[in-house]
Structures are given as C-alpha cells and as structure tokens.
C-alpha cells in the first residue's frame, strides 16, 4: 500500500512539474523600446585576457544606441563575469534568462567549456545565440536552429596554416604542442588532417596540461624531435612559458599559432620580446587597418571604452562576432520576434565587416570560414599579412 501511495505522490509531482513547465511562457527579452541582449565573459580568472571580447561588444552596442538604436529600440546589454567557469556561466545565463524581461538573444560568450554548459539550455528554450567566442566544432555538430557560429573553426584554421606552411614555406618537419582540452584538440585534429593530405605526419605531438607551469620536459622533447616548425595551440601563458623556455634551451623553430594568440602587442609583452616572426592565423582585420568599419569602431572605442582598455584583437573580436547579429536585428524589422530574427539571420549573405565573409542559410550555421595567414615582424609588435582571406574548402 505504501508503495502505491509513494507512486501516486511521485506521479502527481511529475505531472505538476510538466504542467508548470509547459505553462510558463518564455520571456521575450523585447519591449517597445528595448532589446535585451546578454553575454558572459571572463573578467577575472585565467582566461581574463579574453574578457575584452565582452567589453568590445558593449562598445558596439553603445555606438548603435547613440545612433538611434535598431528600429527605435535601444539595446540593453547584460554582461556578467563567469570567470571561465562553466558552473557560473550556467547559473548567470539562467538567472538573466528567467528574470523579467528575459534575454532576447545571447551574443558571443568566451570559451568552449562555458558555452557547452549553456548550449542545450538555450537551444531547448529556443533562444538565439550568435557568435560563440570559440572556434569549436561543437556549435555546428549538428547544426542548431538557434545557434549561429561566426568564429572560424580552429579545425579549419589549423588546416589553412599547415597548407600555407607546406605549399608556400616548404615546411615538412612539424611538431604540435597543444593544450590538452577541446581547443587544443580541435587544432591538433585540423593540423593532422591537412598533413595527411600532403602525405606528412608530425614528428611529435606534445600535450600541455592546464595547470603546468614548468614546460622544460615538453620543450626538450620538441628540440630532441628535430622539428623545424612547431604548431602551438595553447593559451597565452603557456605560449609565453614555451617561448622563454625554448629560448633558454637554444631551440629556435618556426613558431606557428592560432588566432587566439594573434594579439601581437600582448604576446610580445608577455614573452619579453620573443614574439618575433611568429606565423599565425588572423580572423580579425589588423587593428591598425584604416578600413571604413575599423575607422568607425576606433572612433567608438575612443568615445565609449573604459579608461585603460586596449585597442587589441580580443576587444575587436567582441565587435566582429556580433556584427552579424546586428545585421539580423536590422533585417528582422520592427516587429521583432525570435522566429523573425532567425529567418533574418538565415538571409545574411556575404556580409563583410571586420572579419571574413559571413553567410548563413536555412541549413548553414557556420557563418564565417575565412582566416588569413600573417606573421609578426622583427619587433614582434606588428603584423605582416602574408595571404588574403582563405578558406579550406
């Protein structure tokens, strides 16, 4: 009898739960005068150098608001510090999403792990998310109706770099130093695939643990392998330790790296000036470019950015990842709903802001596939563009 009573109580609770969930209307995040957009980003913690992404987006929105907003609505921007901690990302996103007036759509958001923590939640609730700030395959495997990726895939970046190195620089003796996480493994996968196409194999693959601060054994292995080109898919701190340790051990290969380390002034500063002649993939136009978009954003930066903010690649990435979202909001028209917004995003074709060309359609959710190859100069502070925008396909 007790068993039956328990079963009935459980069934009641479940039924009420289902009814309660079904009954709760999703908050729209839009009012007559406002569009609420959210973003997480590490302002403190180990990934804080990438926190400039969320601040860059804020400046873009301020610029738009001062220009009259979008169809008469101002963007209300909700940014929070998740410290690159997925648990905090999830808690922050849920709190903002479920509190009046809700969030209409989410912009960028640094990191694969934090993004993965909220991806299913947002997709189940049919909340649009544009421009995750990580070039991960997770966003598009399989494509999600409400998720529009802008950041070119690390997987593609690595292929493009290897293709350039093999065909233009005639390199063939590669080693790969990669972060032992999703980011590093995506780069590794792309590099291996492209090498295979050229009948090559790396002489060595060396993973770096997240907490490692002493990389001597790693670098000695690289040196011992005889590799003349090292593809480095690690975070900025590990890149600095790598360069300094290699210099002390008199190991001077051609260093090659991803767009996440494309902020030459920052990298040059933290490597004590060793960031010279490093080949990297660029996904954002050079901050010193004088293109119309860049000039406009520079003016906005000078007007709205906080004191001490740096005009660098990560800050600009926060603008680049969200440019397509702004296009989508404009195209969706004054009667803004999430369904109209998704349709508008799908109609974006060959949009060119400060990143490569961005296009979506009813099936495609990876909007940008273009990166370029560049090299830092002898000072390590400036970059020399080596190719035009390129794709792997």
């Amino acid at each position: 009898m007790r068993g039956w009573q328990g079963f009935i109580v459980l069934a009641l609770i479940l039924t009420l739960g289902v009814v309660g969930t079904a009954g709760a209307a999703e908050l729209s995040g839009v009012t007559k005068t406002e569009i609420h957009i959210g973003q997480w980003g590490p302002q403190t913690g180990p990934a804080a150098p990438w926190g400039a992404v969320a601040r860059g987006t804020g400046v873009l929105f301020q610029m738009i608001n001062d220009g009259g907003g979008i169809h008469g609505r101002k963007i209300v921007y909700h940014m929070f510090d998740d410290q690159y901690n997925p648990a905090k990302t999830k808690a922050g996103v849920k709190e903002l999403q479920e509190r009046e007036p809700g969030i209409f759509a989410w912009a960028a958001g640094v990191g694969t792990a934090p993004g993965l923590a909220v991806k299913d939640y947002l997709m189940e609730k049919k909340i649009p998310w544009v421009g995750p700030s990580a070039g991960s395959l997770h966003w598009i495997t399989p494509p999600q109706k409400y998720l529009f990726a802008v950041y070119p895939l690390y997987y593609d970046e690595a292929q493009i770099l290897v293709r350039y190195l093999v065909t233009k620089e005639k390199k063939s003796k590669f080693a790969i130093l990669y972060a032992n996480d999703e980011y590093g493994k995506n780069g590794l996968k792309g590099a291996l695939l492209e090498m295979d196409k050229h009948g090559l194999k790396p002489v060595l693959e060396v993973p770096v643990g997240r907490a490692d601060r002493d990389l001597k054994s790693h670098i000695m292995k690289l040196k011992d392998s005889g590799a003349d080109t090292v593809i480095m898919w690690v975070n900025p701190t590990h890149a600095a330790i790598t360069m300094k340790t290699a210099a002390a051990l008199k190991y001077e290969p051609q260093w090659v790296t991803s767009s996440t380390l494309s902020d030459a002034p920052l990298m040059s500063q933290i490597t004590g000036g060793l960031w010279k002649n490093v080949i990297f993939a660029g996904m954002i136009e050079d901050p010193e470019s004088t293109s119309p978009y860049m000039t406009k954003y520079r003016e906005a930066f000078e007007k709205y950015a906080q004191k001490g903010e740096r005009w660098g690649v990560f800050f600009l990435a926060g603008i680049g990842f969200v440019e397509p979202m702004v296009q989508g909001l404009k195209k969706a028209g004054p009667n803004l709903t999430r369904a109209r917004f998704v349709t508008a995003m799908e109609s974006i074709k060959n949009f060119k802001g400060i990143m490569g060309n961005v296009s979506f359609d009813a099936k495609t959710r990876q909007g940008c596939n273009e990166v370029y190859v560049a090299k830092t100069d002898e000072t390590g502070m400036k970059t020399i563009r080596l190719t035009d925008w390129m794709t792997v396909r």
Partner: protein
Amino acid sequence: MLNFLQIMVSGLAIGSAYGLIALAMVIIYKTSEVLNFAQGDMAVISTFVAYYLLAQQGWPFIAALPAALAFAVLVGMAAEFLFLRRAKKPNLLGLIIITLGFQMILFGFTSWKWGADPKDLPFPVSPFGAFELGGLIIGHLEALTFLLGLVVMAILFLFFRFTKTGVAMKATQQNLAVARIMGIRTRRVLLLAWGLSAAIGCLAGLLLGPAGTVDPYMMWDPALKGFASAVLGGMTSLFGAAVGGYLMGVVENLFGFYVSTEFKSVVPFAIILIVLILKPSGLLARHYVKKV
C-alpha cells in the same frame, strides 16, 4: 646521456623553487602545526608588488627586491595577527580553514587590483640567457634559482640550529604552553614564523615569475608541488623539504621527458599518496608521537 643530464639540471633548478615553497610551508608547520593553504597566494601578491614597483613605478631592482620582501613579511605577519590569533578556541582544522579563507581574500584582491592579464616581470637575470658546458645548457635564471635555494636553506639551517629565536620556534611547535611557561614569547615567535615564511615564498615567486608570466594563478601549480615536496621530505624537516623539492623537480621532469607530458601533473599527487601510505611522517622527518 646529454638529454638525461639536461633534464637533471632543469629538474634541480625547478626543484629549488619547489624546495623554497616547501621550506616556507615547513617553517609555519614547525612552529604552529598549521598547513598554510595561502602560501602560494602570499607569494603571488608579493610578486605583484615587485612587478608594480619595477614595471609601473620604474624602481630599480635593488630597491624593489627588499621592498617586495618587506611587503611579504607584513602580509605573513598580518595573516597571523589579524586572522589566526583572533580565532576563538581554535583547533588545528579551524586554523587551516582560516588559511583557506585568507587565500581567497588574497586571490580576490590580486585579481581585482592587477587584473588577470599575464604580465612580464622585469628581472635583472634574463630568463632566456644561458651558458653552455660541454653541450649542457644551464639557464642563468636556473643557476640563480639553484644557488639562492642553497643559500636560503643554509641560512635557515643555521638559524634553527644556532640562534635563540630558531630554537624558540622549535620549542613553540613542540609544546606551546610549556614554551610560554619557559619565558618564550610564543606570539612573537608565531608572528616571526609567518613573516619569514612569506618572505621565502616571495623569493620563490620572484624566481618563478620571470620564467613564465606573473598572473593570479602563477603559484597554483608550484604551490601544490611545494606542498608535495614538503610532504615527501617530512613536514617538520627543513632538510627534508629541500630534498623533497629537488626530488620532485627531477622526478617530474624525468617523467615528462621519458614517460608522458600528459600525466606529468599527476606525479605530485601520486607521490603524496605513496608517501602518506608508506611513511606518513615523510622521508626525512622523525616520526613524532604525542603522548597523552
């Protein structure tokens, strides 16, 4: 063979830094039996002060070094005076938890004050300068770390063996009440132990900073390995802590080079586990049993 020797040299150098952190932990443990979980962050904040004076205020290193060390001493003493001493009817676990809280305060302050962007610490000895001995490369910074490690260990050994204050510190650890009855100003001793420990931690931070970057997380890995070194050598033995540091550095580097870099970070945990199972008091500490 050259690779093996190179790994040994590198291992001994990084081991010196681990040894310094282990010594800093042991000094506090020897006087109060408290495991200081704020050790790493005490070193970080002092290293940041050095960075601030050198890079942002343009102080010469000769002035910034003593200033950073003095700041470290103050931080250590403040921890003891403001937090541990205030604990009412403290037991050992309570005091250890207080050090955890202090760690969080320091970490939060450092992140807030200097941000989490990695920074390059200007240092008079180049982190990538090196000299060669028959094909063996010895980094200038590595050599300095090794030498300073030896000097600090020697000074500490002499201090605890031959000075009144050093003996008073040992007496305080063995029996605080009796030490007090015998006229030892135990509160001052504790204050001094914390200050001294923080200064040694600061030295480790200053030696590790230039080899990588200065950021709020810079001591997490070294502090863990310093702790593992102290456990390995014996938490009450200065000599053991130093030897533990060297062993840790060498074993970790040999493992990384010859076995796997992927599982290199696991080595300290494995060592702690094995030592705690086989010889709980550590390799070089005498097993100390309190009689009821």
